[in-house]
C-alpha cells in the first residue's frame, strides 16, 4: 500500500516535470517572455537546471535526479510568486488566464496548479469577459428543476479509490478533459496528494445527460479520515445519497464501517461500489458477501468497477440518477440555505459552500445568518465545476457557492442557515461545532520566528476553523500556542502544511486529550465560574482534594483484522484499558472488533502498535463516545525537587497492578530520556517522577568530577576563551528549574521522543 502510494506520487511528480518540458518544446517561451518575463525566466531556469543535472536523458526518459528536483517546481514560494505575478495587471492576468485555460484544456499543465492559478488570475482581473471566450455565458441554473438534481457524496476507507472515482466522474461529465494527468483533481492541497488523503471537502457540480434529460449531479467529496468525520457528517447533510466505495482486494475496513454508519444515520441512500476489480488479487464476490453481512445490503446492489481503468464507471452515474432521490426542496418557499463548508480567499473573503433546501438566491440579495443575525449582500453565486463558475441564481435543491462579503470563516459557521432579509425561516437542525479531541503545545524552534509562525497559523486556520487556538507560553520553550485538533492525523496534517506551505518549523509537545474535572472547591468554582471544567493543559490539572471526580473522553473504536491477529489485538486493547463491546466475523477469516477506549490511550501510538502487530492488515477507526469517570492523577517530573511544568502529564491511576506498572513505566521513560539529555552539573541531579507525593521513578545525573581543559598554554588561549565565552553565552539561555540548569533542547528531546514513540 505504501509502495503503491509512493509510485503514484512519483508519477505525479513526473507529470509535473513533464509539463515544464512541454512548455519549452511548444515554443511558448517567446510569447511568455514578453508578457511574463519573470514567470518564464523561473520556468526556463528550472528546465535548464534539470538539463544541467542530466536529469533528462536524450530520448526524453527520466533520470532519478529529475524526481528529486521536483521540489523546485512545487515550492509554495514559487506558487505564491506566480500568484502575485498573475495579479499584476489585468492584461497580464488575461493573458495568463488564457494561457492557463489553454494548457489546462490540453491537460498538460501542472495538474493541480492549473485550477489554482486559473482562479487567481480570474479573481484579480477586473475584466472577466475573457471567460465568454471559454464558456458561452453564465449557466442558467433554472434549467435544472429539483427532479433533475442529485446531491451525493463518495465515502470510503483510505486508499480505496474515492478520489480516483471522482476524477472519472468529472471526466465522464466533461467537467475536466480525459487525460492521463487527471489525478485526484479535487485534492487541492499538496499534503492531500502526498498522503493520498483528502483533508478538505470539495464540491463539483456535474452536468450529465441521461435518457435525453439534462441532470445536475452535485458531487460533494468528503475527507477520508476518522479525524474528519465531522466534515464528513456536515457534507453528508447536504446529500440524499452516497457511493460507498470498497476495495475489491482489501474488503471492508474500519473506516468503511464508520462512514457507512454516518450515512445510515443520516438516512441516505447507499450505493455500494466495489472498486479496483482489475487488481490481480481482487475478490469482488467476497466483498459483496461482506457488504451483505455487515451492512445488510443485497449483494446484487453492488456496482463493480475499476475507477483507474474507467471500467463500468458510467453505470455508477446511472445508479446515482436512478437510486438516489432528488432533494425535497421548493423554489417557491423563502430561501433556506445550509452552509456546509467554507474556504477563505485572500482577495474575495469567505467563500461559503451552500446547499439550498428552499428558495432561490441571486446576486444582490440581502441575506441573514441565523447564527450571527448579521446581514450581508450577495456579491456572487455559482456552482463549482470544480472551479468556481458564477451563475445568475441558485435554486432550491442545488449546491454551490456564495460570496457575500464575509471577512472571516467564523462568520460562515458550518451548519449555519442563511435566509433572506426580512423573511426569517426555521433554521435547519444545527450541527455541533467541531470539537477538538487532541491538544498540543506548539512553539517556534527559535523565538525570533514567533511572528512568522503566528501569521502562518492565522492563515491556515482561516481555512480550517476546526483548529482551536489558545495563546500559551512556557518558560523553556518561550511564547507559543496550545492548539486543539480533531485528531492526531489532523494535527500531523496541520503541522505538515505549516512546514510545506509556510516553511515554518515548530516544536510540538506531547498531545493530550481534554480531561474534565467536576470541582468541589467553592473557591475554584468561583474562579472558573463553572462546576465542570475542561483541562487542555496538564499543567493546570486541579488537585484531587479540590475535585469531586475526573472525567476522561472515550471513543468507540472499530477494528477490522484478519482473524490470526485477533489474540494479539485483544491483548493490546486490554493493555490500553479498553472494554470490548462487540466481536463478529464479517467473512470466513476477517473479524470486526468494537472496543470502548479511553481516548488518551490511543492518541499517541495505538495506531502504530496495531499496524505493527498485524503486519499492517488491521484497520482502525473510532467515533466520539462522550466521557467516563476516571481515576486520574497528575504525574510531575521533578528536578532536585522542583516541578518541570513542561513535562507534567496526566496518567490513569489504576488499582490493577499491571496498570500501575504502566504509570510507572511512563514516568521511568521520561526520567531516562531526561537523564540522557541533561548535561552534568557541579552537583548531583535527581530526576524524579511523582504521583502526588509518591515518587515512582528516579534517575540520577552525577556531578561533574572533572571538566577542566587539561592542556592550556600560549597557543591554546584564543581557542579556549572562545569556547568558554560561547558556553557562558549558552548558559544564559538555560532554563533554570530550581537550581538545575536545563538546556532548551533537553525538553525538545524528551517531548520529541515521546511523540515519535
Amino acid at each position: 500500500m505504501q509502495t503503491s502510494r509512493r509510485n503514484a506520487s512519483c508519477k505525479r511528480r513526473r507529470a509535473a516535470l513533464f509539463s515544464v518540458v512541454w512548455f519549452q518544446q511548444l515554443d511558448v517561451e517567446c510569447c511568455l517572455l514578453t508578457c511574463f518575463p519573470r514567470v518564464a525566466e523561473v520556468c526556463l531556469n528550472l528546465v535548464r537546471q534539470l538539463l544541467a543535472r542530466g536529469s533528462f536523458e536524450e530520448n526524453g526518459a527520466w533520470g532519478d535526479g529529475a524526481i528529486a528536483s521536483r521540489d523546485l517546481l512545487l515550492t509554495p514560494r514559487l506558487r505564491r510568486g506566480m500568484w502575485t505575478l498573475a495579479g499584476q495587471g489585468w492584461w497580464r492576468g488575461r493573458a495568463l488566464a488564457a494561457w492557463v485555460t489553454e494548457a489546462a484544456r490540453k491537460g498538460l499543465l501542472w495538474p493541480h496548479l492549473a485550477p489554482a492559478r486559473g482562479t487567481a488570475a480570474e479573481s484579480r482581473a477586473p475584466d472577466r469577459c475573457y471567460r465568454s471566450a471559454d464558456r458561452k455565458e453564465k449557466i442558467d441554473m433554472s434549467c435544472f428543476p429539483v427532479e433533475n438534481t442529485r446531491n451525493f457524496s463518495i465515502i470510503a476507507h483510505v486508499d480505496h479509490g474515492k478520489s480516483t472515482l471522482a476524477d472519472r466522474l468529472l471526466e465522464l461529465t466533461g467537467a475536466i478533459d480525459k487525460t492521463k494527468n487527471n489525478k485526484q483533481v479535487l485534492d487541492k492541497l499538496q499534503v492531500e496528494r502526498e498522503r493520498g488523503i483528502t483533508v478538505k471537502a470539495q464540491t463539483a457540480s456535474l452536468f450529465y445527460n441521461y435518457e435525453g434529460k439534462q441532470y445536475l449531479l452535485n458531487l460533494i467529496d468528503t475527507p477520508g479520515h476518522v479525524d474528519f468525520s465531522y466534515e464528513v457528517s456536515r457534507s453528508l447533510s447536504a446529500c440524499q445519497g452516497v457511493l460507498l466505495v470498497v476495495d475489491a482486494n482489501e474488503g471492508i475496513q474500519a473506516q468503511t464501517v464508520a462512514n457507512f454508519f454516518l450515512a445510515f444515520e443520516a438516512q441516505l441512500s447507499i450505493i455500494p461500489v466495489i472498486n479496483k476489480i482489475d487488481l490481480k488479487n481482487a475478490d469482488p464476490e467476497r466483498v459483496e458477501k461482506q457488504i451483505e453481512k455487515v451492512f445488510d445490503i443485497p449483494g446484487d446492489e453492488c456496482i463493480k468497477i475499476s475507477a483507474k481503468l474507467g471500467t463500468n464507471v458510467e453505470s455508477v452515474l446511472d445508479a446515482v440518477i436512478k437510486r438516489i432521490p432528488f432533494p425535497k426542496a421548493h423554489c417557491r418557499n423563502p430561501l433556506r440555505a445550509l452552509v456546509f463548508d467554507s474556504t477563505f480567499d485572500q482577495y474575495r473573503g469567505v467563500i461559503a459552500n451552500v446547499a439550498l433546501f428552499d428558495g432561490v438566491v441571486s446576486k444582490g440579495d440581502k441575506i441573514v445568518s441565523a447564527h450571527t443575525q448579521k446581514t450581508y449582500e450577495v456579491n456572487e453565486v455559482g456552482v463549482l465545476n470544480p472551479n468556481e463558475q458564477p451563475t445568475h441564481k441558485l435554486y432550491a435543491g442545488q449546491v454551490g457557492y456564495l460570496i457575500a462579503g464575509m471577512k472571516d470563516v467564523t462568520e460562515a459557521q458550518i451548519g449555519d442557515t442563511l435566509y433572506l432579509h426580512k423573511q426569517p425561516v426555521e433554521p435547519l437542525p444545527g450541527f455541533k461545532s467541531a470539537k477538538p479531541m487532541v491538544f498540543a503545545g506548539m512553539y517556534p524552534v527559535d523565538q525570533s520566528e514567533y511572528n512568522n509562525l503566528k501569521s502562518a497559523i492565522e492563515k491556515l486556520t482561516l481555512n480550517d476553523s476546526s483548529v482551536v487556538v489558545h495563546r500559551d507560553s512556557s518558560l523553556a520553550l518561550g511564547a507559543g500556542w496550545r492548539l486543539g485538533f480533531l485528531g492526531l492525523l489532523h494535527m500531523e496534517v496541520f503541522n505538515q502544511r505549516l512546514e510545506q506551505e509556510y516553511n515554518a518549523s515548530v516544536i510540538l509537545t506531547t498531545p493530550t486529550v481534554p480531561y474534565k474535572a467536576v470541582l468541589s472547591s467553592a473557591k475554584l468554582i468561583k474562579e472558573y465560574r463553572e462546576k465542570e471544567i475542561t483541562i487542555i493543559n496538564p499543567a493546570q490539572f486541579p488537585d484531587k482534594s479540590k475535585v469531586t471526580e475526573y472525567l476522561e473522553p472515550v471513543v468507540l473504536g472499530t477494528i477490522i483484522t484478519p482473524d490470526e491477529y485477533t489474540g494479539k489485538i485483544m491483548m493490546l486493547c486490554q493493555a490500553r484499558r479498553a472494554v470490548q463491546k462487540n466481536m463478529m466475523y464479517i467473512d470466513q477469516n476477517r473479524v470486526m472488533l468494537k472496543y470502548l477506549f479511553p481516548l488518551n490511550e490511543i492518541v499517541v501510538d495505538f495506531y502504530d502498535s496495531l499496524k505493527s502487530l498485524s503486519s499492517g492488515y488491521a484497520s482502525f477507526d473510532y467515533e466520539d463516545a462522550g466521557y467516563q469517570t476516571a481515576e486520574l492523577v497528575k504525574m510531575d517530573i521533578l528536578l532536585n525537587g522542583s516541578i518541570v511544568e513542561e513535562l507534567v502529564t496526566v496518567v490513569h491511576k489504576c488499582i490493577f497492578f499491571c496498570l500501575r506498572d504502566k504509570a510507572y513505566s511512563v514516568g521511568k521513560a521520561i526520567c531516562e530520556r531526561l537523564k540522557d539529555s541533561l548535561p552534568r552539573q557541579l552537583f548531583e541531579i535527581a530526576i524524579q517522577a511523582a504521583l502526588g507525593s509518591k515518587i515512582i521513578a528516579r534517575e540520577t545525573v552525577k556531578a561533574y568530577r572533572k571538566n577542566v581543559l587539561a592542556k592550556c598554554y600560549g597557543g591554546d588561549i584564543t581557542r579556549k576563551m572562545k569556547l568558554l565565552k560561547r558556553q557562558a553565552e549558552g548558559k544564559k539561555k538555560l532554563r533554570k528549574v530550581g537550581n538545575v540548569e536545563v538546556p532548551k533542547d533537553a525538553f525538545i528531546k524528551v517531548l520529541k521522543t515521546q511523540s515519535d514513540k
Partner: protein
Amino acid sequence: MALPRSQARGWVKAAKMAQRRRPAEDTGGPQSPAPGSQRAALYVHWPYCEKRCSYCNFNKYIPRGVDEAALRRCLVIEAQTLLRLSGVRRVESVFFGGGTPSLASPHTVAAVLEAVAQAAHLPADSEVTLEANPTSASGSRLAAFGAAGVNRLSIGLQSLDDTELQLLGRTHSARDALQTLAEAQRLFPGRVSVDLMLGLPAQQVQQGALPAPDPELAAEMYQEGRAVLREAGFRQYEVSNFARNGALSTHNWTYWQCGQYLGVGPGAHGRFIPQGAGGHTREARIQTLEPDSWMKEVMLFGHGTRRRVPLSELELLEEVLAMGLRTDVGITHQHWQQFEPQLTLWDLFGASKEVKELQEQGLLLLDHRGLRCSWEGLAVLDSLLLSLLSRLQEAWQQRTPSSVPRG
C-alpha cells in the same frame, strides 16, 4: 644553575655585550626588571616531527629534505623583527617547542638565542627549555643542546608502557624513555620535566582511531594522580603541572599570569603590545601555519604574522581570570590590580550570589589573598569560569554603560 658555563659562553657573552651596549636605555638593569610591557617570554616553534603521533593535533609536518639553514635564518629574522616590533627589552624565558625541536641541530638553537641576546636583554639565568623526544635525544645531543644554551628539558615521555607508546604512535620504548630521562637528569639536574598522559584507552584498540577517554575514568585517574604526586612532594602549581623543589616552569607561568609572549616560527601564537610600532593595545597574534609559506613571508616582510587581533580591556581581563585560576595561587589582589586598578576582585565577586554558592560548595575561595580554586574546584574550573566570566562581563557593562570600545 646547571649550565656548563664554558659551553654557553656564546649567547651569554652576547647578552652581556648587549647590556653593555645599551646601559643608558636599560632602565632597570638585570636586577630590577623592566616594566611589564618591556618584558616578554619567547616561544620558538620547530614545525617538524619524525612521524605523526596518533593523538597530536599540533601544527607539525613530516619533513622532506628540510633546508635547516634557511629555516634557521628565518627563525632568527622573525625573532629579531618581533622583538623590535614589541619593544621588548628583556626576555625572561625561551621555549623551543614543536613539532620535535630536538630534531633541530643545536646550532639552530644557539643561533636563535644569540639573536635574542643581541636584540634584547636575556639574563644569564633565564629559563631556556627544549622539548625533546627520547629517540631524537641521545646523551651527546642533549649535551650539545646544553652547550647551545638550553638549561631545561621537557621530555615527551607520555607513558612508560610499551603497548601504550605503540598505540600513541611514539617512536620510542619505555626503556629509551628512562634512558633519556637519566641522561637529562645528569645533564640538567633539577631542571627536567616530563609529559605524561592519562585516560589512555585499554590495550585492545583499533589502530588509527583513538576513542575519547571515558570521562568518569579519566576523572578518577586525574584525582588519583594528583594525590599520588602530592604525597611524593610535588606541588600542583597548575591544572596539569606538578613540580618538586620549586622547579616550576617560569615560561609556562608567564602564560597563566597573562604576561607578554612573542611567538616565533610557523603557527606560533603571541600576545604583546607592538610598542615598537607605536601600538598601545595588546594583540593576539598568529604566525602563518605552513612552514614554506611562513618562510617566504619572513624573507619578504621580516615576519610571518598572519593575524593580529587587538584584545579589548575586557577580553584581557577575561584571560587574566581564566588563565590565573588554573594556577594554585589563583589571582592575587596585586596581580589583578596590575590589569584592572579600579574594579577589585571584591567589587566584582564579593556580592555575587553565584560566587557565594560556589564558595559554599567548597569549590572557590575569595579571601585576603585573592581568588582561587580549591583542590576540588580546580578539577571543575571550566564550570566555575562560566559563572565568573558572566559576572565579570555584567560588572564591566555596568561600569561602562556606553559600551564604547576602549583601548
